[in-house]
């Protein structure tokens, strides 16, 4: 069961995140998808056999904005337009600090906006902090 979806195309970021999650024993609860199209396919249960149920909804989606094929904005828009998934918490994880990006994402229904940070003492562990809150504390109806 994947409670947390990380949608990220940058291999470096993926590797750092995977290590951080592994160090904190969260690797089994995380599913990594490498772009928006992959994320939408997974959430919509593409490639499932007839009668097979789609996977249960994740507790949170960590979504990068700049990705090839289908970018973060498109994923955000489609999830919010989908009756089944419109309440899934979405955290934007971006290297952008532009206020216009933040404003746009919140307007489109993002639940949180996190700027990618580099802490040489705890590489990638800010994602663990984010994950702990959404996995353990946050509740959805």
């Amino acid at each position, binding site marked *: 069961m994947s409670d947390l979806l990380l949608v990220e195309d940058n291999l470096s*970021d993926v590797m750092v995140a995977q290590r951080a999650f592994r160090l904190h024993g969260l690797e089994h609860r995380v599913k990594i998808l490498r772009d928006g199209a992959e994320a939408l396919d997974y959430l919509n249960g593409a490639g499932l056999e007839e009668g097979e149920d789609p996977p249960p909804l994740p507790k949170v989606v960590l979504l990068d904005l700049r990705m090839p094929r289908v970018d973060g904005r498109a994923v955000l828009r489609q999830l919010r337009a989908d009756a089944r998934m419109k309440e899934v918490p979405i955290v934007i994880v971006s290297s952008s600090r532009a206020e216009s990006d933040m404003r746009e994402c919140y307007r489109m229904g993002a639940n949180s906006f996190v700027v990618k940070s580099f802490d040489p003492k705890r590489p990638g562990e800010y994602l663990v902090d984010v994950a702990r809150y959404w996995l353990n504390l946050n509740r959805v109806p």
Partner: protein
Amino acid sequence: MRAGAFISTLVIAGLGAGASLLFWLTMQSQQTSELERDAAVIASSLAHVVGTQIEEQELGALRRWVAAFGQESDPKEWLPKANLFLADHPAFSALARIEDDRIAEVTASGDGGEMLRVLEPRTAELIADQISPGESESSVGPIRMPDGRIALAIRVATPSVDGGARKIVAVFVPEIALDRILERRARSYAIRVLCGAEEVYRNADALGAPDDVVWAVETVRAGAGPDWSVMVHATELAAGEIRRKAPLVALVAGLLISALIASLVHVSQTSRARAAALDYANIGLREQIRATTHGEAEIRGLNAALEARVAERTGALQETIAELETFNYSVSHDLRSPLGAILNFAAILAEDYGERLDATGRAYLERITSSATGVVSLMDGLLAFSRSGREEIHKARVDVQRLVESLRDEQLAARGAGSCKFQIGDLPPAYADPAMLRLIFSNLISNACKFVRKGDSPQVEIGSRVEGNDVVYFVRDTGIGFDMRFAEKLFGIFERLHAGEEYEGHGVGLAIVARLVRRHGGRAWAEGAVGKGATFYVKLPAQNGRDGNVAFLYV
């Protein structure tokens, strides 16, 4: 010169007298035609007056009366109203109501009524001739009164209640009306007025007019009746007045003209030399004016071209600056990601595999980390510097005293309570962008605390002085100071006077300070000596000092 002028004056006076004589003769010959012309003008204006007065005042009053009371058939009602009308309009001498071609009621002033009775058959005949029963229109015909005067019988048909033919007939005596209209007009002129072919008016002057005079005639139409002709002729009196005036006018005119020409000659003689000189000067002036005008036009043209070019260049420059800023921003932004990866993997390498590396390997890894960190900090500085040039300035009154005190507290909290000794003097408020002013002082204060000998704790003095309209704030420290030869370089971007390892920072802080102060219309500079501390100055215009008119009122 004076004798010459005198003789000239005499000659001119003689010429003037000759001119007077000529003028007089001309006037004599023109007099007759002038009088006739005058008579024609007067006839025309009188005809206009007679036409409008009779049509609007007299016949109009009758039409209005008929419209109001024409239906009345009870003698007790009709007679008082008719009498009232006759009293108000003296030119009407009688009013009659005619039913089926018979006089039903008559009222009159003077002998008008009697005349109506006498002329009854003629009236009836006229009515039968000219007015069909039931039609509502008026007709006018001249009749001779018993006293010989010509009157007009005016007939107005009105619809009657029982369908019978009803008319109102009025006797109108033009002489009475014209007497009133022409009483004060055109004295000294003989006036006759004809209605159709009958003379209805003749003034006192006309009574004595000789038979052979030529009358000026003007004819005008009034309402439905016959034409009115006004005939005018100037009497001997009017002709005499003009004749008497003529020689006098000629003489006065002659003298005036002589005097005028004489004085002109005099002036022209005495000032001919000056005039020549002036003419010469004028030619020069005109040349100059032409040259100046030409030059001005040229300058205006050049200015316009220059302005257009400046505007064009400014636009292009602004575009370039905007592009540069965007480039700056996106480069800084895009480089962060790979730099972050370097930092992350260096950290992971040190943490996960550090044990397998020897001391040299770990030192190399540290160089990777510190270099990448330096680049990240450089990027941040670049972004901050870019922002300092891009962001809009929103000026407000800033309490500099409180601002500096809060920055001091921040410094002490960050570096330790004993790291710096602060001495803060009186700091007047500034009129500036609050966030930008905070950045300015924050950079200066943190520099003052930063550039100190290892293990030393510097004294930092912050104060101000007023210079005319401006306020100069200063931040003085007892730190390492600098060589005055490099005073200008201090404020350049990425300029550092010390090795990177020794003091943190990336050489952007003072560049930002200089840029922000400049954008506020002020100036930043520094004084110092190696080992003897440094003083940084920031000069800001006082509130509205540069761009407001209000401040000048207080000066």
